[in-house]
């Protein structure tokens, strides 16, 4: 499989406040993300996860090191539009990324910018709205939609550019549980059915369990990297960097400390219940 995003020794620091030392947000990140995978990047506030995300479609440019998107160096300004077309980004606040006051116009915004022919825009808009199951809301005004629906419109707006990868930068942070569910279901389906690479930036542990790979960031560096089953069971290490393991793992961890013979990597609730029943039997 090919790599859609690859970073090498990536460093970045934000301009400092007056009289202070610059804060190093990323301290040498080397990471590669496979085409078609579903990767979650976990981390506490200030761990550098959002900064890393913003490097993935050239919103920020590396201070040191290099970022390649589908083989293109993000520092090459002539490739900027192509990079942003291939890696779409969905942000945290749904209100601040919707441009138009009719749903279909907003979804069309990306293709319009790319200069796609009018008939093709129509096709893309309709299929993008279908893909996020928002077809019936085509003519609605965005401010009448719920948070989860707005984020799905934002995702549709990205899909209409036919990207290879979608980066969700804490896109579920401002949503209620129902809205989060909608967004997560949508991106998992897009990953499965269309083979779009998903990079989900979050601090919700239970969202991490959906991915096929979890990268945990701390202090501007990836500190753990592996499948959810490998990473999410490292309860003590996660705690040390200010993250909580998923509730199921916490429970199993506690049971284990009390001397029960249960596996730690039962991430799903059903799976966890099963494991406990077996241990009691």
């Amino acid at each position, binding site marked *: 499989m090919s790599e859609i995003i690859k970073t090498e020794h990536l460093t970045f620091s934000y301009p400092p406040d007056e009289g202070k030392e610059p804060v190093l947000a990323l301290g040498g990140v080397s990471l590669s993300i496979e085409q078609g995978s579903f990767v979650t990047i976990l981390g506490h506030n200030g761990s550098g996860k959002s900064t890393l995300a913003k490097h993935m479609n050239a919103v920020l440019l590396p201070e040191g090191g290099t970022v390649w998107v589908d083989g293109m160096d993000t520092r090459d300004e002539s490739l900027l539009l192509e990079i*942003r077309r291939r890696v779409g980004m969905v942000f945290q606040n749904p209100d*601040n*990324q919707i441009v138009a006051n009719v749903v279909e116009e907003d979804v*069309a915004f990306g293709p319009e910018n*790319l200069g796609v022919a009018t008939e093709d*825009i129509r096709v893309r808009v309709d299929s993008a709205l279908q893909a996020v199951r928002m077809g019936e809301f085509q003519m609605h005004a965005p401010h009448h939609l719920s948070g989860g629906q707005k984020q799905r419109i934002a995702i549709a707006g990205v899909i209409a550019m036919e990207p290879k990868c979608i980066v969700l930068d804490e896109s579920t942070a401002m949503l209620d549980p129902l809205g989060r569910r909608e967004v997560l279901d949508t991106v998992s389906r897009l990953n499965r059915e269309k083979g779009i690479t998903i990079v989900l930036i979050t601090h919700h542990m239970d969202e991490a369990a959906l991915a096929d790979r979890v990268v945990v960031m701390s202090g501007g560096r990836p500190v753990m990297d592996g499948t959810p089953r490998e990473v999410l069971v490292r309860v003590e290490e996660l705690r040390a960097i200010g993250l909580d393991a998923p509730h199921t793992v916490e429970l199993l961890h506690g049971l284990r400390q009390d001397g029960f013979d249960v596996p730690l990597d039962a991430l799903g609730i059903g799976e966890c219940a099963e494991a406990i029943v077996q241990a009691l039997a």
Partner: protein
Amino acid sequence: MLKDITLGQYFPGTSLAHRLDPRTKLLLTVIYIVALFCAKSFFSYLLIALVLFTGIKVSGVAPKALVRGLKPILFIICFTAVLNLFYTPGETLASFWIFKITKEGIFTAFFMVLRITMLIMGTFLLTYTTSPIALTDGMEALLGPLKRVRVPVHELAMMMSIALRFIPTLIEETDKIMSAQKARGADFESGNLIERAKALVPILVPLFISAFRRADELAVAMECRCYHGGEGRTKLHVLRYKPRDYLVLAAYAAVLAGVLVLARFGL
């Protein structure tokens, strides 16, 4: 409570007036206004009034809604009428103290009121039958030639449509901030005018800060969706003139010509 505010109210519909190309409607409004200002006599006003009433009938907009639109400028109408009534020199009909009413004054005042009323009603007809997006699209297309002399037409249209998009969002936000400040004991309802104006500061400051933050985030989000100005941009909805647009335009042009001819003969 703030949620009911709408700017440039639009009544959705499917009448001929709604289906006309927004560019046509903008041009019609311009022709209408020019005709109105060239009108000098009873006959020409009658002709234009006929056009206005046909427009209202065709659009299916309730005349009540149009009359309601006149309310905010009622004062200006009355003021103009009074000024014209007393300050037009000519044949005196009645006089008391320093005021005198002249025959010419009565005519000018009457026509002035007629002109302003019809002007407002005609332009309201435009905004009542055209959605804000269509209006912006129409303006961008009509002003298109100005791009050659480096007028940022696309940028202006984009700003306008973003402003329209954010009105409901910002109104909602104002509502939220007001509640938050009320919960902290702010009082917006009592005191004199100056005190009330001062009470608005704790609303405006957070509102502005948040609006700037929104603008910043929106700019990044737009760039992420490959926005790079109007160059090479295509559109989901392309405006196309239809036969009906030409017909209505021709009719309006004929009316304007009629008014000009009438004016030429001093009628």
